[in-house]
């Protein structure tokens, strides 16, 4: 099995599917990609992704209409399909857009399926624009907490920030630019373990990073070309207020740095980048780096960083995962294994409109607003 085979890229919902397709396009089919959606027409356009269509009987393939609960139920019904997808996978890169029905409803189910198979997950979630309605914002924020409970490392990126450099463009171009930018950054993570470079990050190292860095992380990506490319790329990465890399560096416990360049990438540049970053980092920060050489790139240098907000040495993380994954009944869950707040200020209203405007009730990593019979997969004759 090759490293590529171990990776599975999953795009959930409209936004997630588009980004996944864009990444798959860049890998020329080497990275297996899947798009999960309730809008069958939209997902059919993602030619480079295997398509998983959920909720046929509920939505007639027309999209969820923002009905998070119904998506959740539909995703649960497709749990076996999702699990089969994950067969032979050891690391899943999940891309999703939060605030709408499909991304918010189906992504937790995908992460839970992965967790049940002991598959490491890295989730990138885009958040609604500031100008979008409060309800979507709240739903997105709440879903994030569910993702934290269900997955390993979660990175959020606000659409506002992703499009910050293209607000004056027509909306369709601005979205495309944001999608491409995020896709390029995520692609670099995949390239780190699959493409040649001076210093490679192997699969095991990345998996350990995701295990040790469980929880929230910040992702940064910047490029520059020309003779001053390393200074410029670094400045773009550190000084962009939307990325928040510089402000995060001073207190983070662990960090992954990826450097992508063409055949002209020089060792001195790599050394300079790392020396500059180390100056900003706390002395005990666990720093990992890798480089990728892409002959197609001439004179361009790209940097991708993953800043882990929390860090547990991998041995301890192993125990945590083992404990969490073997716990079935939330009521019996040991508190240390459940990373959720018992009555958290949390997550998403997956249970329907009735609890939409309230803080979700989280216990043992489960959203108690979701019907118990659904979470337990109890058979109900609804007719």
């Amino acid at each position, binding site marked *: 099995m090759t490293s590529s085979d171990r990776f599975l890229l999953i795009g959930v919902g409209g936004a997630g599917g588009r980004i996944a397709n864009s990444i798959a396009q860049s890998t020329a089919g080497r990275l297996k990609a899947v798009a999960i959606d309730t809008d069958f027409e939209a997902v059919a356009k993602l030619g480079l992704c295997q398509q998983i269509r959920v909720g046929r009987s509920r939505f007639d393939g027309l999209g969820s209409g923002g009905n998070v609960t119904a998506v959740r139920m539909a995703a649960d019904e497709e749990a076996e399909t999702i699990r089969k997808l994950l067969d032979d996978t050891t690391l899943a890169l999940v891309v999703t857009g939060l605030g709408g029905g499909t991304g918010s409803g189906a992504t937790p189910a995908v992460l839970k399926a992965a967790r049940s198979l002991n598959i490491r997950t890295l989730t990138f979630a885009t958040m609604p624009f500031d100008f979008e309605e409060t309800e979507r914002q709240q739903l997105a924020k709440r879903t994030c907490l569910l993702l934290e409970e269900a997955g390993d490392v979660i990175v959020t990126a606000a659409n506002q920030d992703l499009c910050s450099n293209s607000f004056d463009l027509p909306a369709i171009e601005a979205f495309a630019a944001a999608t491409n930018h995020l896709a390029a950054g995520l692609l670099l993570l995949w390239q780190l373990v699959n493409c040649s470079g001076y210093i490679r990050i192997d699969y095991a190292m990345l998996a350990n990073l995701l295990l040790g860095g469980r929880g929230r992380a910040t992702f940064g990506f910047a490029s520059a070309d020309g003779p001053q490319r390393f200074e410029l790329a670094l400045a773009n990465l550190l000084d962009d207020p939307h990325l928040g890399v510089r402000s995060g560096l001073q207190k983070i416990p662990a960090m992954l740095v990826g450097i992508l360049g063409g055949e002209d990438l020089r060792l001195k540049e790599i050394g300079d980048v790392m020396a500059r970053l180390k100056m900003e980092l706390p002395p005990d920060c666990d720093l990992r780096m890798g480089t990728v050489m892409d002959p197609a790139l001439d004179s361009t240098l790209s940097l991708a960083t993953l800043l882990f907000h929390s860090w547990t040495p991998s041995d301890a993380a192993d125990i945590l995962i083992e404990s969490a994954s073997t716990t079935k009944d939330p009521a019996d*869950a040991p508190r240390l294994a459940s990373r959720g707040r018992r*009555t958290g200020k949390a997550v998403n209203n997956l249970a*329907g409109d*009735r609890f939409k405007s309230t*803080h979700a*009730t989280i216990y043992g990593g489960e959203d108690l607003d979701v*019907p118990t*019979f659904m979470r337990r997969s109890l058979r*109900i*004759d609804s007719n």
Partner: protein
Amino acid sequence: MPPQTPIVVLEVGTTRTVCMAGMIDDEDSLVMTGFGTSATTGVRKGEITELQYAVSSIRSAVEAASKEARCDIRSACLIYSGGSTESTHSHGRVTLDPRHQVIDSEIMAEARDIARDCTLPPDTKRLHSIVSNYIIDDTRVVHNPEGLTANQLQANMLSIHTSISGLTAMSNAVQEAQIEIMNCKFGALCAGAGVLTAEQKKAGVLLVDLGGGTTSYLAYADESYAAAGSFAVGGDHVTNDIALGFHLASVKTAEWLKTSSSSAILDNVTPTERGTIPAHATLGAPERSYNLRSLHTIVNARLEETFKILRTIMDNHNILSKFGAGVVLTGGGAYQNGVVQLVERIFQCPCIIGEVDDPKLAELQQPAAFATAYGALRLAALDEMRKGRERPSWFSRIFNKGL
């Protein structure tokens, strides 16, 4: 003799808002003079979600109580059962002067003050600080050490605290309804004062208030307050589960199914047994049938989970085996068919529905649904007495069950 100011309590529940007014009569007994209720809107899971709707519900209940009590209600004790309420144990120690080792009220107050000075979780507000007991010289556990001799006195305290944001939103709604909040009490503590007897507390008892939006609890063990809290799962979740399970368009239809036909246990129902939702309950949709076992399964799953969570919480407090008097249920959820049997199976101890001894409430169909407000009225009366009314006989009459 000037007219008494009525004692008023206000409970803004998820499904019902209750306002009760009381007076002390000439025979020194607490008499409920006003009782008003209204269906609550704008509250979900004990949280204010639509301020103006909630304000309207409060006004309706207060108006009804005012009318019956024939007085103008402008202030009240607020009952709060928000879902983020928890309790924390702390203790305060005082070493007595070797020359004077008799414990007096000042020494006790000092130990309590030290215990009360514990750190609470961030973004929380203290609702109550209750002395569980005192320990003398690390050996003797007593409830009133005054007059005893000791080298050291330790006060053990239970602090009940809740989320600031939830409480603030509730307070804002009450104040918006032009009601001044005199103080605030935790719902399960009030329910305990409403239905628990001194014997039950002595034997150890778990009170569970099953509300529409939250489940609150108060535990007594070793003759002391042992745990209190609330989490945001209630009867509304059961209704919601039924609506989703049967794809019902109306929550009212789900509510009808829950109250009229569902059971918390799966006994005596065959897999194929069916029931009918009559036309009047479908709100315009045609009459339809449903699988009865599926209905019971939905309700059983939710309530079993809720009580297993409670069991885990009690286990975490190491008091699960200390409920000699079993479990007492209050709140509207106490009348869910089969819930008493379910609780007995999960906790392996007797379970009863709490009895409210007020004659007016006893006439109601579900008196334990008002146990919280009634208990709050009793506690508020006690507060009045503590404020200095020189009528000590009130205490024994109001609290003839014992605190």
